[in-house]
């Protein structure tokens, strides 16, 4: 018995070294040459946020199918290797190691939750395998290294969008924030919402927190009720948000509840029901946007996946895969250094979620839309588009920004003068022109 234990322990001790050696030998030569191009996809397919993982997988699958139908990349077809991380950070790390070391994928696409992307990114960075996260918005994710990219906007921007909407359009003077204490996503949004909201002359009067395993939110909500804020900001994921809204309404709190892209899932309608009235989110795109690029995508997606409308997560995954395919094409193969440079050079890529340009920190610069939830029809109503100040003028959606703003009851002309809260934009030549005094006030990370 003792012998068995000792040998198991020895194995466990040496396993990491063995993995290192293997990885060291492979660096730089992953899958270069001919044959299929293997792309790894990882996400939560069975955990608390499994709708995110499924949407990601479906978005990537649709893009892959389209690329392969056109003959692949330089005659080579794309083959997907999909792994489930159960929504757990440690598992995300393990499956990405597996994708890179065993399946020898040329690039990795994933995760949605920032906490999981943060856990897996160092693995990809160390192995020099490019990783594109379609929808992790916490700024720290791409700071892991120069092989980590994203095709969505980041939390400093998303948080400030909601703060601007609350202060300018809803004319809120006070806000309470109710966030998920274990989520990097939620913490990031909380920080940047508060920064921008305070800068606009309003005040965050209470902060409360919950965890994903909580069964009851009334304690925190009662405390928030006694502070009586104008709006409540709940930067969380759909699994909790619906119940939070429901219990808040039960306590007679009818304030607007605001959130981010983490709310975007069909399950929210069932969980929150009528309580989702008078709630607003910032998101990457609106499925009801009439532009032909979006409607073609929505149609193709619905045709392939049982008539389910694509949420923003699916749209971003679709864009991520298309950018990756275009970059492999441009790089002329899957050599990891060349592929990295090619992805980094992505500029004005016409994606479903807007034109995508990656800045020097490998983050996408694009506008966000504010949507109002309509639980009766299970639809999102478009409210306004809020752009990154000084975003490149070639972004089509940004061009439409001014028109879009006039759609909302509140004139947002003053918004153009508001300083960019996202310091990552400072590198951008256009941004420099718009920067005023407090450009760096919010959230240098």
């Amino acid at each position, binding site marked *: 018995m003792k012998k068995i234990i000792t040998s198991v322990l020895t194995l466990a001790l040496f396993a990491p070294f063995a993995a290192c050696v293997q990885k060291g030998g492979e660096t730089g030569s992953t899958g270069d040459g001919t044959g299929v191009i293997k792309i790894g996809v990882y996400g*939560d397919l*069975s*955990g*608390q*946020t*499994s*709708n995110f993982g499924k949407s990601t997988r479906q978005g990537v699958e649709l893009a892959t199918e389209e690329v392969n139908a056109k003959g692949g990349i330089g005659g080579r077809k794309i083959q997907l290797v999909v792994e489930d991380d*159960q*929504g757990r950070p440690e598992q995300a790390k393990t499956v990405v190691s597996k994708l890179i070391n065993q399946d020898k994928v040329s690039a990795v696409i994933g995760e949605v939750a920032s906490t999981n992307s943060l856990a897996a990114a160092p693995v990809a960075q160390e192995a020099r395998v490019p990783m594109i996260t379609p929808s992790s918005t916490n700024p720290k994710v791409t700071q892991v290294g120069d092989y980590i990219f994203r095709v969505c906007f980041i939390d400093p921007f998303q948080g400030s969008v909601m703060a601007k909407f609350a202060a300018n359009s809803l004319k809120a003077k006070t806000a309470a924030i109710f966030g998920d*204490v274990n989520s990097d996503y939620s913490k990031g949004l909380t920080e940047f919402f508060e920064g921008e909201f305070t800068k606009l002359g309003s005040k965050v009067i*209470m902060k*409360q*927190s919950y*965890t994903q*395993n*909580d*069964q*009851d*939110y*009334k*304690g*925190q909500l*009662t*405390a928030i*009720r*006694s502070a009586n804020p104008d709006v409540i900001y709940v930067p969380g994921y*759909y*699994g*909790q948000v*619906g*119940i939070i809204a*429901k*219990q808040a309404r*039960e*306590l*007679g709190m009818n304030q607007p509840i605001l959130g981010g892209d983490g709310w975007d899932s069909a*399950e929210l309608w*069932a*969980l929150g*029901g009528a309580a989702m009235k008078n709630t607003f989110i910032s998101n990457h795109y609106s499925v009801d946007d009439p532009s032909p690029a979006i409607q073609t995508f929505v149609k193709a997606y619905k045709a392939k996946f049982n008539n389910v409308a694509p949420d923003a997560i699916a749209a971003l995954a679709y864009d991520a895969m298309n950018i990756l395919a275009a970059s492999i094409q441009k790089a002329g193969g899957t050599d990891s250094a060349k592929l990295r440079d090619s992805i980094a050079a992505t500029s004005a890529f016409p994606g479903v979620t807007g034109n995508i340009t990656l800045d020097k920190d490998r983050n996408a610069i694009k506008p966000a839309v504010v949507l109002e939830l309509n639980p009766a029809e299970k639809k999102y109503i478009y409210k306004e588009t809020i752009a990154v100040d000084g975003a490149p003028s070639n972004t089509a959606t940004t061009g439409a920004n001014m028109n879009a703003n006039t759609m909302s009851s509140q004139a947002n002309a003053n918004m153009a003068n508001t300083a960019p809260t996202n310091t990552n934009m400072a590198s951008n030549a256009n941004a420099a022109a718009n920067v005023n005094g407090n450009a760096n006030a919010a959230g240098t990370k």
Partner: protein
Amino acid sequence: MDTFVQQLINGLTIGSIYALIALGYTMVYGILRFINFAHGDIYMIGAYTGFVLATSLGFAMNPSIFAFGVTLLGSMAIAAAIGMAIERFAYRPVRRYSRMTTLITAIGMSLFIENLFVVIFSGTPRAFPQLLQNDIYPLFGNAAISSSQLLIFVISIALMVLLQYIVFYTKIGKAMRAVSFNINSAKLMGINTDFIIAFTFALGSALAAAGGVLTSQYNPQINPLMGIIIGLKAFVAAVLGGIGNIPGAVLGGLIIGLAETFVVGYGQNIGIPSTYRDAVAFSILILVLLFRPAGILGSNVQEKV
């Protein structure tokens, strides 16, 4: 003042749920001196059974008291059967080995159930149908009580009274107390101890399932891992009140529920952020155990069930 009353109601609501689950821990411990770590998952099974019953029988479309009653009793019965099956096929075969073996079997059972449900229902949170009209009754000022909260109070108190009756005023209750006192002597007196143990598991599982269905009316979101944290807290409640002691489990559950809620409600005034609410609940446990190692109501001579 109205905020205080509101927090009191919130605390008692969640505390009653903890108490219902804590009863299962405490009864099994009283009889077998064994912590059934899969008990939190029985609570989850109860909620899912209710979910399947309510959706398959069409109750989600036409909610009524009848629909709620059938769902509640149905899921209690099914959970009781599952609890007995777990005892029969997982715990009984290893009961004659060391207590550690049973304990590890229980942990394995817990993981098995959780992952089985992830495979069957996927991990994404599901919305539990509202089976009863959820009305809000204003008390005074801003304080209000919802019918789901009232329901939790009334049903959990009724179940606890029923349990007290079974244990102290019925023949089978007497047998349970005998087994808890000394299992070998009980066997010599002609008590079918295997049956009594199975019955205890059934009783505990039914209470946990009731907790699951009741919580799902109050917080209509269920997922396969919902039993982990609540199971842990109920276990703490059972230990706090004195494990093996039935009124102790109820008291412990209410204390943990109230402590949590008041930390959230008033902790900020004295510099404790709401994030620390679980830490505070567990600190209370440590403090109580320092001064009363057997728990608040526990003692070595107390009759245990």
